[in-house]
């Protein structure tokens, strides 16, 4: 059976997590789309902590009925892995977009320099003695 003190402590911790996430969203420091996974984590942990029979039942299914709180650890770990994996995809996308932005910026800047003061001169236009006078204009 699950010790009552663990149920109480885990419930409080889950509630705290939910409260912090809620506060972060309210203060616009966390976007809803990134908060969803955390809210799901908090809710699942809260349900499993407060609903002791439920926790015992799940522990029974998985053959750890001697120590049901192990399920809490397992679920929390699982959710953390999911959140991290999701963040890796977000990071990858940001990195790609960052690259595109840097490339666009650099190309635009080059064009701007070219338009503004003609510092950038094409090969054919440049050399006075060139056999092929610039036709690229």
């Amino acid at each position, binding site marked *: 059976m699950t010790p009552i003190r663990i149920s109480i402590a885990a419930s409080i911790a889950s509630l705290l997590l939910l409260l912090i996430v809620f506060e972060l969203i309210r203060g616009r420091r966390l976007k809803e789309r990134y908060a969803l996974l955390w809210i799901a984590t908090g809710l699942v942990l809260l349900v499993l902590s407060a609903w002791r029979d439920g926790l015992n039942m799940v522990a029974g299914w998985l053959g750890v009925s001697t120590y049901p709180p192990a399920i809490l650890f397992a679920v929390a770990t699982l959710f953390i892995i999911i959140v991290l994996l999701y963040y890796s995809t977000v990071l990858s996308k940001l990195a790609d977009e960052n*690259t595109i932005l840097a490339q666009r910026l650099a190309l635009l800047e080059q064009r701007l320099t*070219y338009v503004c003061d003609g510092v950038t001169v094409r090969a054919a236009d440049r*050399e006075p003695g060139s056999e*092929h006078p610039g036709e*690229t204009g």
Partner: protein
Amino acid sequence: MTDPRVIAVVPARNEEGAIGDVVDEIRRCNSLFDVVVIDDGSTDDTAGVAASRGAAVVRLPYNLGIGGAVQTGFQYALEEGYDRAVRLDGDGQHDPSALALLLGPIERDEADIVIGSRFVHGSGAYRPPLGRRIGISWFAKLVSVLTRQRVTDTTSGFQAMNRKGISLFARDYPNDYPEVEATLLVYKHRLRLVELPVEMREREHGESSITFARSIYYAIKVTLALLVAMARKHAVPEEEAGTG
């Protein structure tokens, strides 16, 4: 029929000592070539030196790595409407006098992309350090198996391509150590690839961007990327609309 417009794409990072000669030499070998130097977040005067020798300079706001820099060059070539692009490194290890040779199969419409290989039979006595040599031959074998075409040098940054190649690489180009994956990309998009033997010179200035520890990391990363890339579907490049 006017001559095709050719641009030399030169990625450079902290190569102020070499970049001036590289630009001059390209010009001396091929007076019609335009040169664009992609300054990949240099902290020295690479951009200034290149501009003073008359190259167009695209300055990336921060270091993107070789793949991102080279891709920027191809984007420039695409947008400025060039018909051919050649690519060579900013450290002077590629000899610009070989560029005409590389462009040959493209002018004859026998290839979309030509790679200057250091290992095709007949090329000089280029002997990189052991670790590098193992890596190069590992990737050459792996890519040869995957593409069912004999490739000897998948890490060469000495290349020439036509408009098809430019538009493919402008849209999709891998990152670190990009030439290996790019070879696969070329195969996936059914572009014609030809390797020609070239001589490689010793680096005159600066250091290679790849140290030993990093090369192990790259070897693993690129192998993984290759296998994943094989499982991925790439769109065949869209037919070119008449661009201005």
